[in-house]
């Protein structure tokens, strides 16, 4: 049984390597050069996206992960979501995790908002009954009026993003994973999301936010993990994590 004092997310010496495949070979090449292909496959170089990552996130924290492109942020999030398995080490999550998918991901344009909300809620872990019960809440959150029963392809991108956010929030996750999603909406939408993120936090939801926007993280997170080249560069409260090279790390 997890105790309340246990960290809700724990990365223990986590490494993730991807085998580099090069450009897809295709069947013709594979068949014609079978021996060479097999030989190469055995000695393929691996790309280490994350290398020996150790950190814990306590319940109720807003934990930021910061780093330039290719520093391993998204891999870290996918590991926390359980979509990837670590090559080495251990990822422990004590609770229900919900990834906030990028705009419209997992939605279908021919289905209405209602149908999409039901299906996505279930994909994100709700039972059919729970998903039905929370539909009204999602509808109110998305606040898109009669469009809720129109096919998604008729919606604006911002409306779709609101629905996605609404579904994720209503799965009542213990940990909400937020990737660069916030970057897509307009400023008003971002504000709205951040407002809800703060509200969630007050209710005790743990947040794991990935971004290359240092100001956003500094404003909302109590701790920040700085990644560079798949390794932990700094870990601590925002002012410490960026001290003394706040500007330099922004590359």
């Amino acid at each position, binding site marked *: 049984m997890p105790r309340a004092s246990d960290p809700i997310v724990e990365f223990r010496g986590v490494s993730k390597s991807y085998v580099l495949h090069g450009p897809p070979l295709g069947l013709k090449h594979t068949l014609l050069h079978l021996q060479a292909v097999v030989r190469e496959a055995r000695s393929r170089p691996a790309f280490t996206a994350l290398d020996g990552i150790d950190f814990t996130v306590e319940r109720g924290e807003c934990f930021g992960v910061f780093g330039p492109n290719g520093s391993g942020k998204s891999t870290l999030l*996918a590991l926390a*979501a*359980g979509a*990837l398995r670590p090559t080495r080490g251990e990822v422990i999550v004590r609770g229900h995790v919900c990834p906030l998918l990028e705009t419209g*991901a*997992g939605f*279908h344009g021919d*289905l209405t908002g209602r149908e999409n909300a039901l*299906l996505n809620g*279930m994909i994100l872990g709700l039972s059919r009954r729970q998903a039905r019960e929370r539909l009204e809440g999602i509808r109110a959150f998305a606040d898109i009026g009669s469009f809720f029963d129109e096919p998604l392809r008729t919606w604006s991108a911002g409306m779709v993003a609101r629905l996605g956010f609404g579904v994720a929030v209503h799965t009542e996750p213990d940990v909400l994973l937020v990737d660069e999603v916030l970057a897509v909406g307009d400023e008003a939408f971002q504000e709205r999301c951040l407002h809800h993120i703060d509200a969630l936090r007050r209710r005790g939801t743990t947040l794991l936010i990935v971004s290359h926007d240092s100001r956003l993280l500094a404003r909302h997170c109590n701790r920040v993990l700085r990644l560079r080249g798949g390794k932990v560069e700094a870990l601590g409260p925002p002012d410490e994590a960026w001290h003394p090279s706040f500007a330099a790390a922004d590359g």
Partner: protein
Amino acid sequence: MSTGWRHHVELVGALVGKEFRVRYRSSLLGVLWSLLNPVCFALVLYVAFRPVLHAPTDDYVAFLLAGLFPWQWFANTVSSAPAVYLSNATLVKRTALPRVLLPVASASNHLLHFVVALCAAVPALLLTGHRPAAIWLLGIPLLLLLQGAVCLGLALTLSALNVVLRDLEHLTLVLLNLTFFMTPTLYSEELVPAKLRLLFAVNPMYHLVPLWRHLILEGRLEVAALGGASACAAAALALGLLVHRRLEARLAEGL
């Protein structure tokens, strides 16, 4: 949070429901297409074979239909399988959704279409003078189970394998064409030369199409063909589970 089997079954149901809605939402005839597709195909073949090639059987339309419905089920499952993971890439890359549910939902979807088509085909059969037989009560569930296992096995194999070897979706279509002519749909199985029978027997539909046809048209369940079909079903399912299990962890990285 509901976990385990119940949630998985609900999820497969929801995914199948989505496929159904998406496919038929903006079409006028909707679910009727499940029925019309094989019927139209049968008509095309009838026109091609009856007057031109002098079809061997008297009751050729019924003969064609009884074989084409199960064939279309098989063909639809197999041809859509390679795209299963590719068209759901985000879910695989970003969520912990049990991967296996996606090919299972795809296979279930095609099974459901077949059952709809079958229900609609029975009245047509009655009109042409065929009578339902008591053996249907045993035979239909049995054949649904056997062909369902074949389809599920192939869906698991092709969906996972196509993530690492993208050529598979093209290859699948070629092989499907070949399989069609190696299946006694247009001709009766007696016409397969004796020395080719062993080769043809690796094709699950070589057993299943005649099984369906004899069951529906003659109310006969052929025990010998059941053996072959069971062997194919077991082999396909074992292959599917093996391949899928092997590749499951790599799916998120391959997409």
